């Protein structure tokens, strides 16, 4: 099953480069996404039925790729997100074909990358992310995370113009160099386990954690944290993130924010689990808490005075990555909050990026100041845009609310009042900053532009967003038993 999950998108991706008919290629994308989701659902179902004796993860086994609850959770997010993204992408690509080319901001004409390359990279990107969630070896995990960088770079450069190229270059270089540090970290980890003969296999590391060399393990964690933290978009290593998210097509931004950042977080969680098992939970947790809070602060400060609404969403992703890191760092019940946050943030943010694509189609600009009175021109889009705002900022009932609340409660319970206070203050600041933008864009008035035609709202772009928003809402109101136990098992596997 694990093998099929990785090989299916790999084969489909290779095939997509060869298929010349657009319609056939789009069908291939839809079917692969649906089949991948079906396989994922079967795997999760198998886990829920089989419990601890789940056959795909033999304890002590030396498999390259296998699933434990933590990997399974992130696989579920990735696969669900890709299912929505594939439907969005098909509508989007059809629209781009009819009407290619004029830049929304500077008005120059540009070409798109060939659709075959875009679809092929999209599918290969899914294969790499699936492999990340299944990797049972720290070296292999590194190789797969780096592969996600390389395969998503062509996606950011779909619109071939200067700004997207600049974003792609920064993304490639900063992430490749940053992640090279994580390779150093893996080597340190290997050296720490040399005497104990622990190797770099995750099961072996966890089993032999007591015998690991402590100073080397600390060095390993720091390098892994900085390396994967760069990819995850934690401040101050986040500089590539706003550029890439604002210049990529909306569907790619959604996948980067909702799936890719989580994959990097998984890398950090693997390192954290080893540290916890070796009795360094306080040290590792301290690092995660510090940088988590710093990311929330950074996001809040950059949110104020933001002029581009896709960049604003990108900074909101940095905020949420900060919350995940904070939750993982606090440990205990907060870890559960962080993982629930990963699920609900992915869905809500992907939905918002999908909607931002429809806003861009309606208004032809990414400047916040130029979008006013969206509810007149595109009422459905405006309603979803506003709904997404309520969900992402964590107004109840929303899965995001639940996760923020749990993290906050754990901070208070641990007696860390300054931390809880600072966290709450900057969350309020973020809420205020985003509220201003969303309300101005949705309501407000503006003169009709010259030659502006009435806008037909693209249902293909809005439906996936609406579906994701409904799921986030559902998560806040009702957590199904199987998801609850998966989250608990994953939280136990991520850190102690």
């Amino acid at each position, binding site marked *: 099953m694990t093998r099929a999950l990785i090989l299916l998108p790999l084969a489909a991706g290779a095939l997509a480069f060869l298929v010349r008919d657009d319609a056939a290629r789009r069908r291939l994308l839809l079917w692969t996404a649906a089949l991948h989701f079906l396989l994922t659902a079967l795997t999760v179902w198998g886990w829920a039925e089989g419990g601890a004796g789940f056959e795909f993860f033999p304890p002590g086994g030396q498999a*390259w790729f296998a699933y434990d609850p933590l990997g399974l959770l992130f696989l579920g997010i990735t696969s669900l997100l890709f299912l929505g993204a594939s439907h969005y992408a098909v509508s989007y690509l059809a629209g781009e074909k009819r009407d290619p080319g004029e830049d929304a*901001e*500077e008005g120059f004409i540009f070409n798109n990358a060939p659709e075959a390359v875009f679809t092929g990279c999209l599918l290969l990107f899914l294969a790499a992310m699936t492999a990340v969630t299944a990797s049972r*070896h720290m*070296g*292999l995990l*590194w*190789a*797969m995370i*780096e*592969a996600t960088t*390389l395969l998503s*770079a*062509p996606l950011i*450069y779909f619109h*071939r*113009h*200067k*700004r997207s*190229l*600049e*974003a*792609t*270059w*920064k993304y*490639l*270089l900063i992430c*490749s*160099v940053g992640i*090279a540090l994580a*390779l*150093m970290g893996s*080597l*340190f980890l*290997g*050296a720490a386990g*040399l005497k104990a003969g622990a190797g*770099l296999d995750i099961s072996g590391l966890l089993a032999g954690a007591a015998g690991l*060399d402590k*100073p*080397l393990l600390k*060095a390993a964690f720091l390098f892994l944290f900085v390396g994967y933290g760069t990819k995850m978009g934690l401040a101050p290593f986040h500089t590539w993130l*706003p*550029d890439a998210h*604002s*210049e990529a097509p909306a569907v790619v931004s959604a996948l980067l924010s909702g799936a890719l950042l989580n994959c990097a977080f998984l890398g950090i969680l693997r390192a954290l689990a080893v540290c916890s098992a070796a009795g360094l939970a306080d040290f590792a947790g301290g690092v995660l808490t510090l940088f988590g809070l710093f990311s929330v602060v950074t996001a809040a400060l*950059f949110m104020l005075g*933001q*002029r*581009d609404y896709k*960049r604003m969403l990108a900074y909101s992703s940095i905020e949420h990555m900060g919350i995940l890191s904070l939750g993982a760092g606090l440990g205990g019940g907060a870890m559960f909050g962080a993982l629930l946050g990963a699920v609900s943030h992915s869905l809500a943010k992907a939905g918002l990026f999908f909607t931002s694509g429809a806003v861009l189609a309606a208004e032809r600009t990414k*400047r916040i*100041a130029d979008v006013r009175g969206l509810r007149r021109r595109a009422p459905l889009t405006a309603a979803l845009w506003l709904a997404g705002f309520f969900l992402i900022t964590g107004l109840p009932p929303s899965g995001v609310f639940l996760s923020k609340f749990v993290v906050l409660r754990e901070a208070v319970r641990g007696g860390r009042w300054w931390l809880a206070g600072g966290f709450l203050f900057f969350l309020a600041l973020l809420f205020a900053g985003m509220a201003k933008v969303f309300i101005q864009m949705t309501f407000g008035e503006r003169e009709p532009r010259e030659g502006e035609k009435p806008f037909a709202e693209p249902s293909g772009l809005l439906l996936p967003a609406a579906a994701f928003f409904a799921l986030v809402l559902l998560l806040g109101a009702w957590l199904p038993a199987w998801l609850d136990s998966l989250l608990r098992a994953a939280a136990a596997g991520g850190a102690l």
Partner: protein
Amino acid sequence: MHTLAELVIVFVILLDLALAVTGSLSTCIRLVAAQGVVAGLLPLLAGGHFQPRAALFAGAIVTLKGAVFPWLLLRARDKSGAGRDVEPLITYPASVLLCLGAFIASSWLGSRLPLPATGVAWIVPASLATIFAGFLLITTRTKAITQVLGYLVIENGIYIFGLALFVEQPLMVELAILLDVFVAVFVMGIAIFHISREFDHIDTAELSELSDWRRGEYGR
């Protein structure tokens, strides 16, 4: 038996310094290739007895770093019409001083780290200094090609560091990492080609349209 390996380590350090002073882009590309080749041969020189697996892997590294990468990068240089010079942001003497400083700091750090004894003198300081030289290339040289070279130098440094720590990775993992590096250079090469076409130059210091504070004008 380690004398030969130690000689190679000295050579790696000298190549770092040479990279810091070289002003010619094509020479830089060849220096990085030479460093990759000697780093790839290092396990064979230090290992003692012959192992077919190690020899095979070393062969793959030497082919990739010694032949394929320089060919790709020289092609990218010609196609993108990049000039002959590397155009550093700081002077060459300053680059050398920084490199020497990094080497001294690495020696100190190498003696402080509780690493397993390697038997090959200077291997840890040399690897750390090489990583630093890579960062130096990325931050103080403006062309996109020199940034790729910097990335490769960092990768060489990390590879040597892995040898120094005796961390034996399974062949599949080593190959996956090598494949990543290959694809990275390949994708970056394509990006360089596009940058030269869009911007008529490959000076990354000019890639500054995207930022938070000048957003309103979009750099115009």
